[in-house]
């Protein structure tokens, strides 16, 4: 068994033929969450697999996972520590910031941030990034810019990736500020719809780039039903073309990259992740 399944290195070369330099980027492919009963029904996990066994089975295929339950509820150190202790050491984590600091902002968000940081502390060196996913209604206003700045100040000691869902944030001043703070801008693959943040190949943090594949289900995206929104199966051609268009550029500018599939319905996410790993293996 491989020590780090789902990990690939990509070497990019630059130069004019006289003075050439090469750059190595380590890529980790995984999924957003790992605990889905649906993945048992769809055959990704063996029949009869209970939720408690899923993390270990997942880590047989992948070396990174995005923890999304920390978005639903405040991370609790005891539960996180138990989870970390029950999975192999090669599994790395990205942890989503709790919704009470992004989607349903509470007045006491600073206190909550402190609790969150305590909650994810057991992840220690296995934490690749904290994902700050901002809602579609989070438009670039002065108030929201100030809030985001304060939030990033509160997280400055940790690796952070920010995902915007509104197009108003796709401006150079935002990218340069993220670059100054060494905060990763999340690159998204999602349906092309008005007001949605576009797919970009911009790297704002040389240590890490972060990609989220949400699927390209235009009809389901705004249905309000997650089962429709994330119902999408990437074809090999789509993933190859995405790799050619975006991955080469980003891998050339960062030392590490994480790529997560969020199209969890019918276990398309892990299967598409495996498909992408195969494509990268052939590079």
């Amino acid at each position: 068994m491989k020590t780090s399944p789902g990990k690939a290195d990509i070497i990019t070369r630059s130069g004019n033929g006289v003075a050439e330099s090469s750059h190595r980027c380590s890529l980790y492919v995984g999924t957003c969450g790992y605990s889905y009963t649906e993945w048992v029904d769809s055959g990704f996990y063996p029949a009869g697999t209970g939720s408690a066994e899923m993390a270990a089975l997942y880590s047989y295929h992948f070396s990174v996972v995005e923890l999304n339950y920390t978005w639903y509820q405040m991370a609790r150190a005891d539960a996180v520590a138990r989870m970390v202790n029950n999975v192999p050491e090669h599994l790395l984590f990205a942890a989503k910031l709790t919704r009470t600091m992004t989607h349903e902002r509470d007045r006491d968000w600073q206190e909550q941030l402190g609790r969150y940081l305590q909650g994810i502390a057991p992840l220690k060196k296995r934490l690749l990034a904290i994902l700050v996913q901002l809602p579609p209604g989070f438009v670039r206003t002065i108030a929201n810019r100030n809030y985001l700045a304060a939030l990033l100040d509160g997280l400055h000691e940790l690796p952070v990736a920010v995902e915007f869902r509104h197009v108003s944030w796709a401006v150079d001043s935002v990218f340069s500020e993220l670059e100054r703070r060494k905060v990763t801008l999340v690159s998204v693959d999602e349906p092309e719809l008005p007001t949605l943040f576009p797919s970009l190949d911009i790297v704002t943090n040389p240590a890490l780039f972060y990609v989220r594949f949400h699927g390209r289900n235009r009809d389901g995206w705004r249905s309000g039903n997650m089962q429709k929104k994330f119902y999408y199966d990437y074809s090999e051609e789509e993933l190859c073309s995405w790799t050619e268009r975006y991955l080469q550029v980003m891998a050339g500018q960062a030392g590490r990259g994480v790529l997560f599939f969020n199209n969890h319905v019918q276990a398309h996410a892990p299967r598409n992740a495996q498909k992408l790993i195969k494509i990268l293996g052939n590079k």
Partner: protein
Amino acid sequence: MAGIFKLRERSVIHFNVADFAVAVERVADSGLRGRPLIIAPLQAARAEVYDMSEEAFREGIRKGMTLRRAVKMCRSATLLAPRPVLYRKAMTAFLKEVQNYSPLIESGFTDGHFFVDVTGTHRLYGPPPDIGLRIRRYARTHLGINPIWTLGTSKLVSKVASRLVKPVGEYIVSPGDEAAFLAPLPVTLLPGFTRREIRRLKEFRLTTVGALAGLSRRQLMVPFGSRSDYLYNISRGIDDTAVSNSSAVVPGVDYEQVFADDTNDRQEVEAVLSGMISKAGHHLRLRRQVARRVGVWLRYSDGSHVVRQASRRVGSNSDFVLRNLAYSALQRAWIKRTRIRGCRLVCDRLHRQSPQLPLFPDAGGEERRQEKLLGAMDTIRDHLGHRLIHTGSQRFP
């Protein structure tokens, strides 16, 4: 054969609106927010606190405390009389939304608690945490209340998680993590202990669930006897009781009255029931429905309640038939000497009224005469209001 069948891991969400009556009163009157609020029957001589706000709770007010004492302890509190009908309306509205996600719902009558078994619904509605969050969002935006929601593999685990996060918040206990989740918690957070058992646990210095879980069935047998199995299981987070919708808010015609003063006067209770029957019968006739069952709830001043029902094979919407059913249910429910705080009437098992006339009309024409009388009373009530005409025994809610 053992080991071939494996039960699917359950997903049980518990919704709990802390201080439900207060939450509903605050939706009705936003001016009550942020202030200490006590809900209690105001005219009763020895009224007890029915519910109180978090602010009043912090001042030491508790449910069941005498109103006189509560007012002394929290002089700034606003006092309101309970409005169970309003609370039940809010419960029904909440239930309606929850029913969109699962048919397996267990709830109280007016307490803001719902257990929802969403096992196996993931293909339709996505992962269980998402269902919890969506229902909570609905409750916040459409009903103005903010329920706690917790997710576990059983009613026990989700209930304990609720107690942990009260008054607001959420808690997801991952499957397989039940015993570890419970271990550090005070043993008193587990539901279902009798006072005697709590005393015994204290005597044995069993203060945490983990300490209790450290004992074998045999060890527990000595102090707890036949209850040892129950204690053994709950201390490990094992609970296979089903989410049963037997106590759910049933679709039916439903009225409730809280007495101004607690009473044990049978005649007074019958008069109030008769008034409610008259309203229920009118309502059913208007909808061309018949009920096959009548339930009577008696809520006592000590907080307990008794429920009894009476049913018949053929449904009816006649006040005379429904009253007979209600009185026989009341007769069965009349088992305590404690004073009654309120009574509730539910006519359920509803069906459409058959348009077909009976093949053999009753010999003396009694039913026909009663039908005519009720028809005439309905006409008057439709034009001039329900209270204008009533039989001698009635008192209206």
